């Protein structure tokens, strides 16, 4: 393992100054004539065709005609994506060529489904979730472009790890504040900021991933080497337990006070996995799991809503559970929808995903299963898996441990979120309310996931970049 973790962040290479970046990027561009970016462009054209096709087919299926206006506004998103592509050609020419096409495809499919559900409910203009989703996507892409341009060197982030922790925990607990916190569908994970409501927890996951990566890279030696051995497993010292207990407490606070099992599981899982990757200590995982499972069991016994989720999961088709308030009605409706899709699906606009509550957000996967069939959802899951594997690839091949750990954390948070949401919808685990990354309606989720994509792009640029810089004269 290279000991470059001790390098002062921010002084890592010749491309630190503006002039240096320019010359080096020009030099690299001359050597490798943007093969990756050309591949990316080709894939983006496919992604655009897929998204536009989804929109048009959804309209045709629902109304029998296409509405040019909404297709144009969707096409403007294509311009945003192309702008992102051009920016990458300049500032991150060796970034991974699959990430942008994949997230664009997923986002496009999501907008297609949300808009098609709007057509059913008859909402138009700003009342339409589809239109809002398009605007949010534009905002999210703009933010992602800003991130790629602003952070020319990701190691800067390592310096701000404690600030990131503070921001993360504040964002997480913000909805609990009276006045701005808002409760939606029983979970208090929203804040109202005048013009729109926002789920700050979504952004918190980035801040926390940055904190975990920074903290663990510096603290991992003490965490992994010191401590008593019990039954062959080394357990940490009490004083090293501080941060993990803080995160556990935050996760439990989310679980208890915000009544959000999914978010709680997401953050705690993220922390445990990054801890394991950084320290290679199974003891941490066991300790963490014991803590979380202990908390969850207590919660399922004492908190009515957690208990209800478990019953709905285990005994979904029991008429009593099906009919009870907060029971398995939604879960079973989602299953009915997916079953009606079968192997090939009903086709865009030809199913009845509107029958499932929250089809645009929590249940968008069931809606897609209904209209695109098993073939369609397999493709979507495969895209998600490829996206995660591209992130892990940075973890395998990255040049610095902070970047590697951050990339693993960010991609794992996508994988875990996909698993929690879709696993909940398809009855692998109890249902918890989380958004499906890139697909589900919701601005905060889109913004957070596009920023994650931007960070992965930025991190992936170093994977290819560095060796070439090393061999250059």
């Amino acid at each position, binding site marked *: *393992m290279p000991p470059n973790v001790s390098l002062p962040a921010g002084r890592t290479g010749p491309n630190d100054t503006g002039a240096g970046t320019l010359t080096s990027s020009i030099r690299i561009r001359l050597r490798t004539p943007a093969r990756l970016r050309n591949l990316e462009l080709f894939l983006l054209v496919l992604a655009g065709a897929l998204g536009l096709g989804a929109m048009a087919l959804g309209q045709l299926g629902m109304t029998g005609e296409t509405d040019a206006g909404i297709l144009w506004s969707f096409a403007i998103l294509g311009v945003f994506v192309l702008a992102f592509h051009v920016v990458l050609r300049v500032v991150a020419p060796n970034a991974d060529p699959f990430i942008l096409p994949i997230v664009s495809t997923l986002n496009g499919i999501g907008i297609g489904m949300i808009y098609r559900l709007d057509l059913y409910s008859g909402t138009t203009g700003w009342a339409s979730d589809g239109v809002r989703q398009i605007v949010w996507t534009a905002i999210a892409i703009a933010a992602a472009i800003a991130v790629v341009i602003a952070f020319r060197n990701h190691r800067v982030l390592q310096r701000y790890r404690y600030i990131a922790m503070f921001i993360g925990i504040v964002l997480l607990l913000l909805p609990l504040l009276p006045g701005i916190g808002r409760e939606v569908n029983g979970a208090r994970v929203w804040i109202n900021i005048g013009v729109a409501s926002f789920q700050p927890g979504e952004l918190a996951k980035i801040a926390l991933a940055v904190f975990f990566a920074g903290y663990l890279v510096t603290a991992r030696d003490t965490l992994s080497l010191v401590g008593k051995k019990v039954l062959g497993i080394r357990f940490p010292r009490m004083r090293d337990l501080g941060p993990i207990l803080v995160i556990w407490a935050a996760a439990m606070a989310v679980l208890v006070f915000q009544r959000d099992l999914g978010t709680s599981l997401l953050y705690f899982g993220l922390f445990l*996995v990054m801890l*394991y*990757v*950084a320290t*290679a200590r199974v003891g941490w995982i066991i300790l963490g799991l014991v803590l979380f499972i202990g908390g969850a069991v207590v919660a399922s016994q004492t908190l009515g809503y957690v208990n209800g989720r478990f019953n709905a999961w285990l005994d979904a*088709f029991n008429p009593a559970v*099906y009919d009870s308030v907060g029971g398995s009605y939604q879960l*079973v409706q989602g*299953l*009915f*929808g*997916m*079953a*009606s*899709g*079968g*192997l*090939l699906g009903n*086709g865009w606009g030809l*199913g*009845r995903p509107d*029958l499932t509550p929250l089809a645009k957000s929590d249940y968008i996967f069931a809606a897609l*299963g209904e209209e695109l*069939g*098993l073939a369609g*959802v*397999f493709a979507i*899951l495969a895209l*998600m*898996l490829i996206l*995660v*594997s591209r992130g*892990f690839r940075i*973890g*395998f091949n990255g040049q610095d*441990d902070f970047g*590697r*750990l951050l990339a*693993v954390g960010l991609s*794992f948070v996508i*994988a*875990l979120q*996909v*698993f929690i949401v*879709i*696993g909940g919808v*398809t*009855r*692998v685990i109890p249902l918890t309310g989380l958004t499906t990354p890139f697909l589900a309606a919701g601005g905060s989720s889109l913004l957070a996931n596009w920023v994650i994509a931007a960070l992965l792009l930025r991190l992936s640029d170093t994977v290819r970049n560095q060796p070439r810089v090393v061999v250059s004269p």
Partner: protein
Amino acid sequence: MTRELRRLSIAVLIMFLALFTSTTIIQVVQADELRNDPRNARTLYSSYSAERGPILVDGTPIAQSVPDDSQYKFQRVYPSPELYAPITGYFTLNQGNSGLEGALNDYLTGTSNAQFLDQITAIFTGQNPKGASVETTIDPVVQQAAWDALGDQSGAIIAIEPSSGAILAMVSKPSYDPNALAQHDTSAVIQTYQALNADPANPLYNRTIGGNLYHPGSVFKVLMAAAAIDSGEFAPETQIPNPPQLQLPQSSSIVTNAGGSLCGGGETVSLADALRLSCNIPFAQVGAQLGEATISDYAKAFGFGESLEIPMSTTASVYPSDMDQAHLMLSSFGQGDDRVTPLQIAMISAAIANGGTLMVPTLVESINAPDLSEIKGPSAEVYSQPVTAQTAELVKQMMVAGVSNGAASNARIDGVDVAGKTGTAENGEGEPYTLWFTGFAPADDPKVAVAVVVENGGGRGQNAFGNQIAAPIAKRVLEAVLSR
């Protein structure tokens, strides 16, 4: 770190494999089970959203789906609701279907196995799914004539083409309006259904093939005569003792002929005259001589004891078993525990008319895909050969005599030989009679066999006979066929 990452990669792969597996289980393995869950509204909506095929009579719809603006996209409409209700049945949102709507639901919605390829094609061509149309064997003129002829009576008429088994008319009264059950307001549908179901007149019964079944009375004698001759034990001329009264064995009951008179006037009477004049006592003796086993075999060959799919299920008619001698004799002239549908009685006449060959009765002429290609064509299937052609010919002559010069005189049609038999079934002490006629015409080249049943003694209690009420009705139905 690389080793941990590799393990983590495997863990993530397992997580995704779990999702691939769970979606496969839901969308493929359990899909049928989930689709058939009664709580699954999608199955319901899709069965409504697909354009359900029409049910046609001579090319004109008697049930069709008309586009509307509701979430079901179509409204089922019955243009002549009461006239055709026994044939179409009703099509409700989620309260079940009856008649052809129920029996051919798969074809009408386009989901039958025969239409599987069309469904696949529709997926790829993006066409809206559409069900097949069902062309019935019903002749609208005969149906209307039968409806009019029955007037305000409760009862049923069924007319069959003997050579093919095609059902030309199927009337059951009182009838109901299936439009009221096809509306989209489920609570109103349930209310209507419950009211119809509670109606003592039982309008929901299709009396031709089901309901409470009837005592056949004297129309059963046609089967008895056919069995007697075909068994070789009797000829039309065979003389049978003819006392004015018959004490049933081990019973205090006394059998008399209709009206209590001596039937035919002599000490003995021929089998032919006994049928022509509809004498009870001779037939009681014929039954006693043939025995339950022999009669039962003939009854089964004529269709007793079996539920048919025409394509809706018919109620099996009953020839009783394990009878003592008294009951055997009673059942031999259509009393006792004999229970029949009008369809069964028409089948007996049709078999006699068709030279002893009984065709499978059916309501379906053809089933056609939306592109007019034929999914199922006309079929004329033999059900059985209950009696020889010779027997059939002899019984036919006896039945012709019954109309021209016997107890079924009111079915006479000028210039045409009509074969027929009346029946006046007793339903118990003080209960009104059930009045029957069955027969066919023209006798030399039968085009139609009918069965007519009129309940409640035609409104005249125990003071009416089959020949007075049922025969004239049957005559109008026969005329409607003959004047085509």
